[in-house]
């Protein structure tokens, strides 16, 4: 099997109304890959929050800007072996991310806002931000069978 195979590519506009369609498709994709119900909800939440951040911060709410989302099935080294995982790459051409804000905020600070990044970090196994050729890239990885459940069970 290839170590990296494309499952799905989405080309979206930065319109918040597209979020529910992405969630629907992603939930089914995650289920077919073998994630548990709880993991499916986590994957959907993490990607939804990533898209929400792009719409709100990179594009400042403009609803017609381009976003690409690539979904790959990959193998990553973990627990001394190759572990299958879902890799999600989100690309936008919006404002460069402010690295100072990437640390999130203290959750003890009870106020609205600032939760999105926390949700992304909590729901995913790997989170990497980068900025190249005028594009923001967010790479997310969710390990399959992260609790040690054998593949195919």
């Amino acid at each position, binding site marked *: 099997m290839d170590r990296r195979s494309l499952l799905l590519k989405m080309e979206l506009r930065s319109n*918040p*109304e597209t*979020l*529910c369609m992405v*969630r629907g498709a992603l939930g089914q994709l995650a289920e077919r890959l073998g994630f548990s119900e*709880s993991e499916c*909800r986590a994957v*959907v*939440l993490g990607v*939804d*929050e990533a898209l*929400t951040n792009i*719409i*709100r911060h990179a594009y400042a709410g403009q609803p017609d800007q381009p976003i690409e989302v690539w979904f790959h099935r990959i193998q990553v080294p973990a627990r001394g072996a190759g572990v299958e995982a879902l890799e999600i790459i989100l690309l936008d051409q919006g404002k460069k991310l402010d690295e100072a804000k990437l640390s999130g905020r203290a*959750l003890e600070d*009870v*106020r*609205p*806002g600032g*939760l*999105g990044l*926390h*949700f992304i970090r*909590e*729901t995913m196994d790997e989170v990497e931000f980068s900025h190249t050729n005028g594009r923001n890239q967010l790479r997310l990885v969710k390990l399959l069978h992260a609790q040690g459940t054998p593949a195919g069970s």
Partner: protein
Amino acid sequence: MQISARHLDKMTVFDISGDIDLSTSPELRKPLLRELRELRTPRVILNLKAVRYIDSSGVASLVEGLKASRDVGSRFILFGLNTTVREVLQLSKLVRIFEICENEEQAVAP
């Protein structure tokens, strides 16, 4: 998302259904804050039984409601949390700050 209000004696119950996300959370926030800040209803209750999905903007709207209730001295109660909503609130680590009831009977009890 759909939201409707039932006005009882000194309390209002909002029945909410569907998805609360970036595109719909303003529809939740607006009536909630009006009920608390303008009408100063002593008890505002949110029935979340039929909510399929909530994201950080939805949680932020709930936090705003809670803060507004504290400002005006009202009670702000959530009930009917399904697995999806409960997981997200737990993930936010804000679950402890809300008054949460199992059902409507508890939420409206004197």
